[in-house]
């Protein structure tokens, strides 16, 4: 059976595919060697989704902030030391990551443990900050801002708790000596996630303060 092209040869110009058929010569690795690992791509996608969640919530916050009926609440004083603790935990986790790059597993474990504990301390501090608010008679439905306060800090806390769980998994791997200077992606991913959660908290704190 003649093909379409054989029938039409000479009458219709054949369609031109993209230059090089859209890729290299085919023997190169042009298509497959994506420069970033699966885990890295995955973690940044996850982080993007989390940022969009908080972007949506903060747009709602900003809109309602502009309403004449807005009533501000006094921020619990504990948020300041909590913020310092979270910043320190980020530093500790960064130092842990740098230790393993220097191939110093002992120091890595120390800093990792400290980072995780500081993270837990932050979470406990946040619950204590809630308690401060409750003692001051400010509950979720008290004002719009108090509602946002509990929801934003709560959701951030949940995400940070996920980070603590991930850190403990990495700690388990470190205990079994599965991390080395050349292979410590789980720690890298955790550190990236942790720093983003840290930055996210600074943003949320600022958002809540500027009311």
């Amino acid at each position, binding site marked *: 059976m003649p*093909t*379409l092209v054989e029938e039409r040869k000479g009458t219709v110009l054949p369609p031109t595919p*993209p230059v090089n058929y859209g*890729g290299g010569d*085919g023997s190169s690795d042009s298509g497959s060697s994506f420069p970033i690992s*699966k885990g890295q*791509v995955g973690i940044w996608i996850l982080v993007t989704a989390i940022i969009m969640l*908080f972007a949506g919530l903060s747009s709602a916050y900003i809109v309602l902030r502009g309403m004449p009926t807005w009533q501000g609440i006094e921020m619990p004083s504990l948020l300041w030391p909590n913020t310092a603790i979270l910043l320190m935990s980020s530093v500790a986790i960064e130092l842990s990551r740098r230790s393993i790059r220097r191939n110093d597993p002992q120091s890595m474990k120390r800093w990792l443990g400290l980072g995780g504990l500081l993270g837990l301390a932050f979470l406990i501090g946040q619950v204590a900050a809630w308690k401060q608010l409750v003692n001051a008679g400010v509950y979720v439905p008290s004002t719009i801002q108090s*509602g946002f306060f509990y929801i934003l800090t709560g959701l951030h806390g949940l995400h940070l708790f996920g980070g603590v769980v991930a850190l403990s998994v990495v700690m388990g791997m470190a205990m079994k000596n599965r991390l080395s200077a050349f292979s410590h992606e789980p720690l890298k991913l955790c550190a990236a996630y942790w720093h983003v959660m840290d930055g996210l908290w600074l943003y949320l704190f600022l958002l809540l303060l500027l009311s």
Partner: protein
Amino acid sequence: MSESHAAAHGHHELGFIRKYIFSTDHKIIGLQYMITAMAMAVVGGLLSMLMRYQLAWPTTLSPNMAKLFPTAFAGGIMAPEFYISLVTMHGTIMVFFLFTAVLTGGFGNFLIPLQIGARDMAFPFLNALSYWIFLVSCVVIFSALFVTTGAPMGGWTSYAPLSALPAAAPGQGTGVTLWVIAIALFSASGLMGGLNYITTILTMRTRGLSMMRLPLTQWSLLITSVLGLLAFPVLLGAAILLMFDRVGGTSFFVPAGVIMNGIAVDHSGGHPLLWQHLFWFFGHPEVYIVVLPAMGMASDILSTFCRKPIFSYRMMVYSMVSIAALSFIVWGHHMFVSGMNPFLGSVFTLTTLLIAVPSAVKTFNWLGTVWGARIRFTAAGLFSIGFVSMFVSGGLSGIFLGTSAADIQLQDTYFVVAHFHLVMAIAPLFAAFAGLYFWFPKMFGRFMNEGLGKLHFWLTFIGAYCVFFPMHILGIGGQMRRIYDPTQYTFLIPQQPVNVFITYSAFVLGAAQIIFILNFFVSIFAGKRAMENNPWQATTLEWTVPCPTGHGNFPEELPVVYRWPFDYSVPGEKEDFVPQSVPATVMTKH
């Protein structure tokens, strides 16, 4: 033997439960998504049949229906509350649990690793988890139909403050609580899927498969996943706020001074329009989350059965990217009558009409692909042509609705119902059918019956136009979108025969789907066997492996790609197709 070869064989020894139920194989997960979505489609479709019944004969006593639904048809006539919950559940089920699920969850899972030459997804466990959370969300939304106080009544958009106040209507109690939970679970499941799709397509393409050699299906799934990633978290955030308004006593969406059923509501400080903004910031990209994979699949299938390369591959990719980008700045066109500043309205009009440009690029490219082709009229090919037809018919009315001046007249009429059904329900449905007829041999190793497939196509094609085309006229005539009884308005009574005609057509359209369902399930066990790997003479990688495809996808080494996916009717070639895995040297020796 290579490591990958060993890995392919290492997949085999699994029991039935691990292999077909709690599987992490992307093909099984894809099929699980498809079958679950089909079950949801049957539910959603039956609900629409009840709606059509009511719209055609709103005041006729129906004792038989009263026997079937004693509460809903108390006294022999459908209760208005029941009708409005049908509207809500039909919309929710079809948008989320059928279209989003079957196109990205079903085809996405099944096709991504096969078409990019990978053995599985990047994170198979997360993939399985995504399906199981989706299944739970299906169960939750389905259970909302059986709540004693009734199913949710706020429409699929769940506008506040109706949705924020459980006392607003019977179905707004437990019904909406279940709705919010189901949507939140669905968002979480969709995010897990999207994370997997993007990572897999970016990092796991086989050697030689550069981005500009990807089949359009893959491009569309990648872009869709990015849309989902950016849109679903916003819906999730809005759902969290809504839930707090409902059960936590907050007032994010409830302004002061609302009086509900004669009782003043103890809320203040919120803004109901905020929900609309958040919802539509998600909702409009959601339209493209449904339409883009349909476009991608229809493009690939159209090209295969036209035996011609897709017209202007690059423009197809760029236009999908621009549609996706524009979809985030058009949400205000759903809110032209919300009292927005007319200047803002014209900005949203402008951005909305801009989407017509890439959509027209795609349409002309499809026409360019079909132009002068010797089309093989298979069921799959017919459905992909049908997709183009439905997309154009539905898209054109979008130009009216995107223009604020026209939309203010047409807002919430049947014109809108006609528009969105054609463009984001029927068109994606056609693409999904095209995909099912096309990839069925790859899924089950057998063909669906072609004759029944063509019958199904023609009944669906004519049926869909008979149902949705007259709705434009009803809408221009003033019939309201969620009206329960059109005959209660004198000015609508002359249009009532059109409603009756639409209902009969809808029954035919619904019955035609029985043909499909029978064909689908009978063919799994008794269809004609697919003896060869590539029965449609297509070019993409999934056609280089056996039908059905085993665990690990590629029995030998992973394929290497040498060319784009549209080498159909290449001059000088013996066959009128050259698979992507055929080295370039073979082609140039002539």
